C-alpha cells in the first residue's frame, strides 16, 4: 500500500461526493414533476411518448398497479431480448456473422440484462452482433436501471405522502428516469470516453501486421456508448469478454477514474434525492455515510490483501513488492484495482477491471461479501436505495425493541406488516444463494465446471450464485458457466433476486403510504445521527453478512490458510 494509492482512492471518492448534491437535487426535481434544466428540450418528447402510449400523468397507481407495471414491462423486455438473441443470425448489423444463441444462453442473458445483473456467460466480442449489443443489451442497460430508479422513487413517496394509496405512475417514472437522468448523462460520459480512447464505430474489427510480422485481428465496435450506460446504470455488462480490464473499455488511469465516478455517482445521488424529497437532507447524508464508510473499509481490505502478494508465488521467486499481479493490469496497479473491485460489488455493477477469480483469498472474500451484504453501498441505481431503506426499517425496529417503543422511520410507524415484508425481502438472497450453491457443490454437473479445485472451487460456485441473486454480474471467471445447468439456475437466481425482492418492497411502500406521518417528539429515535449510522452498519453486517459466514469459512477463509501453509491444488 502506498500514499499515492490512498490519495487516488480518496480523490475519486471526494469527486463523487461533490457530484451527489447537484445531481440529487436535479433528480428530486425530475421525480416531483417540477420544471428543470432539460424540460424545454425533453418536455415535448415526454408528452409525445405519453400520448402514443396512452399514459395519463395525473392518473397514479397503488402499489399493486405499480408492481404490475414493473412486471409487465420487464416481461416485455425479456421476451423481446430473448427473441432478438435467438434470431441474431437473421437480423441486420451482424458484420461478424455470429450465430443465434442457444436457448439456455439466450434465457440466461435475457434474464441477466432485464434484471440489471449483466452476468455474462458469453464473451461479447465472440458472440454478440452489433445489433444485439445496441438494440438488445444497451436498451436493457437503460430501462432496467430506469425501472430500479422508478421503484426507489415509489418507495420514497411512501414516506413523503400520508393517508393516500397512490405511489406514483410507473410509466411516468420510467420515462423520466430514462430521458431526463440516464440519457443526458450517458451522452456526456460516452463522448468523454471517446476522447479518452474508447472506440466508437460500426466496424467489427481491423487487422494489423505486428512488428514481428504476425497478423493481429483487433475487435472493436460501438464500445463507448455501451460503456457509458453500463456504468451509469450500474449494469456492468461489458462490450468485451474481460470487461473494463480491456484496454478499449478502459485505456488509462483517467478513464478508470471516470468509470468509477460514473457508476457511483448516480446511486449516491439518488440517496440524496431521497433526503431532499422527504424533507431531511441530513437523512440522505446519514445513509450516504453508511455506504461510504463501508466502501472505504472494503477497499482498504482488498488493497491490503492484494499488496501482500501471493506467498505461493513469492516462494518460487516472484518479488512480492508489486503485490499480486495475476489478472491485473499494469496501468491500474493495486490501489485502483482494489477501489474498482469494492465499488463494483458495493454497488450492483459487476463490471471488473481485474479478474476477481485471481484475487488472493481474502482479496476475493471482500467483493463476495459486499454483494452478500445486499449491495447497499450505495447499491444499484434505485435497487440500492430501496435495499438501504429496507435495512433502515429493520434497524429502527431493532432499536425500537431495545427501548420498548413502537419503531418509527421518518414519522411512519413500522409495524408487523412492514416487518414481515422486509424479512421476506432480505431472506430471498441467502435462500437462493446457499440453496443453489449447495446443490452445485455436490452434483457432478455442478463441480465439473470448476477450474481451480480445492476450496477455491467452492468459492467459484458460491460467487456465481451470489453475483446472480445479488444482480451483480461479476464472476470468479474460472467457472465454466455456459452450461445448461448454470445458465438456467443462474437465470432463475437473477429473476428471484430482482423480482422477489422488488415486490415486497413495493408492498411495504403501499402499506407505509397510507399511514399518517407523525411529528417527531422527544421520544423519537433520531435516524440522521452518528448513532443511527453505527446501528445501521451493524444491522447490515449482522443480517447481510453472518448468514453467509459458514459458507465463506469453507471457501476463501480455508483457502487463505491453505495458501499460507504453502499448498496448491
Amino acid at each position, binding site marked *: 500500500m502506498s500514499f499515492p494509492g490512498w490519495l487516488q482512492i480518496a480523490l475519486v471518492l471526494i469527486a463523487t461526493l461533490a457530484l451527489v448534491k447537484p445531481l440529487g437535487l436535479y433528480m428530486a426535481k425530475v421525480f416531483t414533476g417540477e420544471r428543470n434544466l432539460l424540460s424545454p428540450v425533453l418536455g415535448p418528447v415526454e408528452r409525445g411518448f405519453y400520448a402514443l402510449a396512452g399514459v395519463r400523468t395525473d392518473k397514479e397507481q397503488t402499489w399493486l398497479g405499480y408492481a404490475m407495471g414493473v412486471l409487465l*414491462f420487464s416481461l416485455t423486455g425479456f421476451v423481446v431480448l430473448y427473441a432478438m438473441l435467438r434470431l441474431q443470425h437473421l437480423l441486420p448489423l451482424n458484420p461478424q456473422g455470429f450465430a443465434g444463441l442457444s436457448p439456455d444462453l439466450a434465457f440466461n442473458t435475457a434474464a441477466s440484462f432485464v434484471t440489471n445483473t449483466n452476468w455474462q456467460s458469453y464473451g461479447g466480442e465472440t458472440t454478440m452482433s452489433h445489433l444485439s449489443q445496441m438494440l438488445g443489451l444497451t436498451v436493457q442497460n437503460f430501462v432496467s436501471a430506469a425501472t430500479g430508479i422508478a421503484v426507489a422513487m415509489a418507495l420514497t413517496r411512501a414516506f413523503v405522502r400520508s393517508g393516500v394509496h397512490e405511489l406514483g405512475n410507473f410509466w411516468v417514472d420510467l420515462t423520466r428516469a430514462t430521458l431526463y437522468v440516464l440519457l443526458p448523462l450517458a451522452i456526456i460520459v460516452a463522448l468523454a470516453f*471517446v476522447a479518452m480512447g474508447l472506440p466508437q464505430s460500426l466496424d467489427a474489427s481491423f487487422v494489423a501486421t505486428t*512488428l514481428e510480422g504476425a497478423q493481429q485481428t483487433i475487435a472493436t465496435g460501438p464500445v463507448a456508448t455501451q460503456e457509458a450506460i453500463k456504468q451509469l446504470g450500474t449494469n456492468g455488462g461489458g462490450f468485451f469478454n*474481460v470487461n473494463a480490464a480491456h484496454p478499449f473499455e478502459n485505456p488509462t488511469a*483517467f478513464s478508470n477514474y471516470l468509470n468509477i465516478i460514473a457508476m457511483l455517482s448516480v446511486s449516491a445521488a439518488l440517496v440524496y434525492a431521497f433526503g431532499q424529497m422527504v424533507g431531511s437532507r441530513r437523512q440522505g447524508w446519514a445513509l450516504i455515510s453508511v455506504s461510504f464508510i463501508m466502501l472505504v473499509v472494503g477497499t482498504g481490505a482488498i488493497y491490503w490483501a492484494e499488496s501482500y502478494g501471493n506467498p505461493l*508465488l513469492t516462494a518460487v521467486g516472484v518479488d512480492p513488492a*508489486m503485490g499480486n499481479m495475476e489478472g491485473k493490469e499494469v*496501468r491500474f496497479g493495486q490501489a485502483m484495482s482494489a477501489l474498482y473491485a469494492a465499488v463494483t460489488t458495493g454497488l450492483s455493477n459487476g463490471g471488473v477491471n481485474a479478474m476477481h477469480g485471481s484475487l488472493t*483469498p481474502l482479496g476475493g472474500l471482500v467483493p463476495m461479501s459486499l454483494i452478500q451484504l445486499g449491495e447497499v453501498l450505495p447499491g444499484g441505481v434505485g435497487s440500492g436505495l430501496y435495499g438501504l431503506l429496507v435495512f433502515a426499517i429493520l434497524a429502527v425496529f431493532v432499536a425500537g425493541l431495545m427501548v420498548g417503543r413502537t419503531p418509527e422511520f421518518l414519522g411512519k410507524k413500522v409495524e408487523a406488516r412492514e416487518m414481515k415484508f422486509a424479512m421476506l425481502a432480505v431472506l430471498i438472497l441467502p435462500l437462493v444463494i446457499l440453496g443453489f450453491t449447495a446443490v452445485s457443490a455436490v452434483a457432478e454437473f455442478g463441480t465439473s465446471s470448476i477450474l481451480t479445485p480445492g*476450496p477455491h472451487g467452492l468459492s467459484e460456485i458460491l460467487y456465481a450464485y451470489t453475483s446472480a441473486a445479488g444482480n451483480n454480474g461479476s464472476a470468479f471467471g474460472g467457472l465454466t458457466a455456459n452450461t445448461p445447468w448454470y445458465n438456467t439456475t443462474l437465470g432463475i437466481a437473477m429473476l428471484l433476486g430482482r423480482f422477489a425482492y422488488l415486490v415486497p418492497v413495493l408492498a411495504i411502500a403501499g402499506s407505509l403510504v397510507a399511514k399518517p406521518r407523525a411529528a417527531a417528539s422527544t421520544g423519537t429515535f433520531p435516524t440522521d445521527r452518528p448513532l443511527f449510522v453505527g446501528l445501521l452498519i451493524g444491522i447490515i453486517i449482522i443480517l447481510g453478512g453472518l448468514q453467509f459466514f459458514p459458507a465463506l469459512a469453507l471457501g476463501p477463509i480455508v483457502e487463505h490458510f491453505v495458501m499460507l501453509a504453502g499448498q496448491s491444488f
Partner: protein
Amino acid sequence: MLNQIRPAIVLTILLSAVTGLAYPLAITGAAQAAFPGQANGSRIERDGVLIGSDLIGQNFSTAEYFWPRPSATGPDPYNAAGSSGSNIGPTGAALVERVAAAVTASGETSVPADAVTTSGSGLDPHVTPQYAAMQVARVATARGVESSVIEATLAAVTEQPILGIFGEPRVNVLRLNLALDEAAPLGS
C-alpha cells in the same frame, strides 16, 4: 392490468428506438467527426502499414524486442479478437507451476510480478519499468549496441504518474519497440 399492456409495448418500442438506435448512432457520428483517431481504435501506422493499436498489447518473442507480459488469451497470446484472463485462483497448481517455469526461464532469482503473471485482459499494452529494465541487456546484445542506447530509449518511453499521483509507472511495449527500431535499427 389490461390497460397497462399498451404502455408496456409502446414504451418498449419508443425507449428502444431512443436508447438502442438514436443514442449509439448519434454518438458514433459525433465521435467519428470529433475524435476519429480514438473512435477507430487508436491505430498506429508505420510506412503506410497498419501495425497495431496504441492501446492494445501485441506479442513479441524475439530477442531484439522487449517482451510484454504473458497473456492468457487463446489460441495464441495477445489475441485481440478474444480477450481473456487466466481466471486461475491463487492456490491453483496450474498457476504456481506456470509462474515457476517462467521464473526459471528468466534466469533471475527474483523477478518483478508483472513479468511472470498474465494480465486481466490478456492484452495489457504495458509492463512495469522494473520488468523493462530486466530486459535491457538481452535487447542490447541482440541488437549489437551499447546498453546505454537501449536505456536512453526506454527512459524516453517510460511514463510516470502525473504529479506523482495519477496513474502508475509504466512502459508501453509497442511504443518502446517502435522507438527502438528508430534508435537502433535492426540489421544496421
